[in-house]
């Protein structure tokens, strides 16, 4: 028997043994847990009431951490630029030149690329970092506190600022106003409105087409927002349910043993692929919208 097969059989044995052990200890009866509400993971408890709608809560904390990390990482890299780069500098330079040449310059003219590249790259890095710190457990769960030596400490929890609809909405609003204003500046108000219509259409069909095109212009705002928000929210919910939430909700211990491998797989998939991919999509769609707003044909 080869070593690989031995390892596979021992993992399978441990899995089946754990299954039997859990059923033997806890039984396999279901008793629903009514008091556990998993949606509270995304509820924002105000920590510090400030005047107006500026309460401090965990979403704001995550935004501050993401901003500090974005600024700190980029300023640190740019201060320490050397001729023979280390690994971090190579990675950042690769992302920088990749975004500049493959994403921004492919979609707009050079003068415009020089003007809009800072926004696009900042959006990319900021969304990526705020997605990534969403997968680090931080002590922010003030709903369930843990007592350590008599002091109440918030429990560890994963939460992402981008899993709240308001953060992607603000980022998408910035992009929405940017490409509309840039289009109006390039073509004038009437020119820009006319350029929304696909070329070659004349006559009464415009009454049907024009509202649709205007609507699709506004739908870009919604699709930019919901794509980022729904991806991160659904990812966090799946991780939560698969790594134990479902078992707690149904009061069925054996279920956690079955769903835990799926939870680990989803966590790795989200943290490695989805976090970066969503940031990249947001950046590239920003470029496509900006480019199509100023280009002559629709």
């Amino acid at each position, binding site marked *: 028997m080869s070593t690989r097969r031995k390892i596979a059989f021992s993992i399978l044995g441990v899995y089946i043994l754990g299954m039997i052990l859990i059923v033997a200890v806890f039984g396999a009866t279901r008793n629903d847990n009514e008091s556990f*509400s*998993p*949606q509270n993971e995304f509820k924002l408890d105000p920590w510090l009431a400030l005047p107006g709608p500026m309460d401090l809560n965990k979403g704001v904390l995550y935004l501050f951490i993401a901003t500090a990390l974005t600024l700190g990482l980029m300023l640190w890299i740019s201060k320490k630029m050397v001729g023979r780069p280390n690994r971090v500098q190579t990675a950042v330079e690769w992302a920088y030149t990749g975004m500049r040449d*493959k994403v921004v310059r492919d979609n707009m003219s050079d003068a415009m690329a020089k003007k809009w590249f800072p926004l696009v790259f900042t959006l990319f890095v900021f969304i990526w970092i705020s997605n990534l710190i969403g997968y680090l457990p931080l002590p922010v769960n003030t709903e369930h506190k843990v007592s350590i030596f008599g002091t109440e400490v918030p429990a560890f929890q994963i939460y992402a600022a981008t899993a709240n609809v308001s953060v992607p909405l603000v980022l998408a609003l910035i992009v929405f106003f940017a490409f509309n204003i840039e289009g109006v500046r390039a073509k004038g108000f009437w020119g820009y409105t006319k350029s929304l219509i696909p070329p070659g259409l004349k006559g009464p069909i415009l009454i049907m087409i024009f509202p649709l095109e205007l609507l699709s212009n506004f739908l870009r705002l919604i699709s930019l927002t*919901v*794509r980022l*928000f*729904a*991806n991160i*929210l*659904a990812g966090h*919910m799946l991780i939560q349910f698969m790594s134990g939430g479902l078992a707690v909700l149904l009061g069925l211990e054996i279920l956690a043993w079955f769903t835990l491998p799926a939870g680990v797989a989803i966590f790795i998939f989200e943290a490695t692929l989805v976090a970066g*991919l*969503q940031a*990249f*999509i947001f950046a*590239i769609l920003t470029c496509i919208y900006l480019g199509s707003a100023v280009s002559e044909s629709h």
Partner: protein
Amino acid sequence: MGVTTELIAAAAQDPAAYGEKAGRAIALGVGAGGGAAGAGAGIGMLFGKVIESVTRQPEMRDEIASIQWLGFALTEACFFYGLVGGLIAFFL
């Protein structure tokens, strides 16, 4: 079978509450299931086409890869629209 008859008996006792529960469960099932079906078909088609085009023109591989991930993310987002809609209906 025992569980089913118990559920039917309980539902007959309190039809309104059980109707609401059933509606929420159906919303989650339709949202997640329908979203997964559509997005699955789309992603499968996307990767099939990518394989086809790369075997036809292997020198275009890098360009195709970047468009492929864009299409993948746009398609995959549709699954999450359905799932989030279902989750909102289920929990709120």
